[in-house]
């Protein structure tokens, strides 16, 4: 067999495996989210379907799949149906360059970080299309917020990522992980704590999670950009949200928490543990913090994260030049 064919086959398996990972982790995450929400509010959470409600998300997914796709009058047919697909489609290329284990990387590319940052930008476009195409005032307001938020928070995110790239001298995620050691004091979070903080705040904002969930603020905009979506249209947005969470947490793990590098257990398990710890923290945030006002959101970005990110980047550059 030729090399090209081998490579193509490998990529195909990687894509299918990634899709499986996305689907399974979405099921787990939604269950986890509802359980955490329940316990934080001192109630049991889903309990009826399966033991302790473990099959609740499966039942919900079946329900969403069984529902009729419905488009409101006056909605833009093309944009309305393209938006949920466009929101979910980037999920697969986003997860491909992530090193899940020492040899478990779907697509080994030099510019993995750039690939992820580029494809994650599509999400804002999808939300914008959904809001515009729905012919609904709440959806439109949600879309406007989504764009302002995503564009704003991408800049400090990029800066915190860049400061790690400056240190390691590469944009290849596998090499960034290899640069770090197995123990916590070898990880980049130890040398770049501020960058990690900025990255994490921006990541929560980029995935439109509470307290930055203004595009889908239930109490103000009913459901924001996905007000008019039901069935699998809504399901895809939902899936995209959890996939994006998975992606930002995977990138955070690879950049700052040593990726699969850790003692005792095989690398793959450590990667999963680290991702899920970060995801749990994001879920914890959601059930703790109230939503920001829109001016607070932009003030936090432009007056705090951006200057701090810039200062951190300059400092890193300076230190890298000196030493």
């Amino acid at each position, binding site marked *: 067999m030729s090399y090209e064919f081998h490579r193509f086959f490998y990529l195909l398996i990687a894509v299918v495996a990634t899709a499986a990972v996305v689907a399974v982790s979405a099921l787990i995450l939604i269950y986890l989210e509802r359980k955490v929400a329940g316990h*934080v*509010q*001192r109630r*049991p959470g889903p309990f009826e379907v399966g033991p302790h409600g473990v099959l609740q998300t499966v039942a919900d997914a079946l329900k969403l799949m069984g529902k009729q796709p419905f488009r409101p009058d006056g909605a833009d047919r093309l944009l309305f149906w393209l938006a949920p697909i466009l929101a979910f489609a980037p999920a697969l290329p986003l997860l491909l360059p992530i090193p899940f284990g020492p040899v478990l990387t779907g697509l080994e590319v030099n510019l993995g970080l750039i690939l992820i940052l580029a494809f994650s930008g599509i999400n804002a476009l999808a939300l914008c299309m959904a809001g515009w195409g729905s012919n609904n005032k709440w959806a439109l307001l949600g879309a406007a917020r989504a764009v302002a938020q995503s564009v704003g928070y991408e800049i400090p995110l990029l800066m915190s990522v860049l400061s790690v790239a400056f240190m390691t001298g590469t944009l290849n995620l596998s090499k960034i992980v290899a640069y770090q050691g197995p123990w916590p004091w070898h990880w980049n979070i130890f040398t770049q704590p501020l960058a990690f903080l900025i990255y994490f705040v921006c990541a929560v904002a980029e995935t439109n999670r509470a307290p930055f969930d203004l595009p889908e603020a239930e109490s103000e905009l009913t459901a924001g950009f996905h007000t008019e979506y039901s069935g699998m249209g809504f399901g895809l947005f939902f899936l995209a949200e959890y996939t994006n969470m998975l992606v930002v947490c995977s990138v955070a793990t690879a950049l700052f928490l040593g990726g699969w590098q850790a003692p005792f257990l095989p690398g793959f398990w450590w990667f999963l543990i680290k991702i899920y710890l970060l995801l749990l923290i994001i879920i914890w945030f959601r059930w*703790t913090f109230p939503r920001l006002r829109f001016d607070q959101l932009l003030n936090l970005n432009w007056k*705090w994260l951006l200057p701090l990110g810039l200062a951190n980047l300059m400092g890193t550059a300076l230190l890298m030049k000196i030493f």
Partner: protein
Amino acid sequence: MDSVNRIRDDVAGLWSLVKGLKVTGTCFARDQVTVHYPRAQVDNLRTFRGPIELVESPDDPRRPRCIACMTCAGVCPHGCITVVRKKPAKMEKGTEKGGGSDKGEAKKKARKGPATFTYDYTRCCLCGFCVENCPVRSIRFSSRGYLAGIDKGAFVFDLLEKFGEEERSQKPEPGVTSPATAG
């Protein structure tokens, strides 16, 4: 100086975020406070204002206190209460006419009371007017907090049911027509 203060405030605000996480974190670790209904039920229903029920008479717990004065049926804003008076027995009437020595005993036998007491819970708004206005305090809110049914008819209650057959046997004679007995 003002901007310095504002920056200090913002940094102090970060600490409040940690505090918030601590609050939800401890709540997460604590026991649940909700009761998981089909498997367990709450036991503090004493103050629950459920559908109304009739109070037992102090001297005869097999009879309601109700004197069938119709006040409840009158004040009920939705007309969910239908009371039909008990017909005085013929024998009792005779003794009353005779008058004389055993007047007290006759009075006791000729006690006023309801023949039927129907209550349509589907129309009740639990306003409590009947409870407040009953001259003999014969109506109270029950603590039936777990009332459920799949049929509207299941919520039309015969409030005399709990007093057993004795009260029910003294229904008005077939000749007497009233809206409540027709149903």
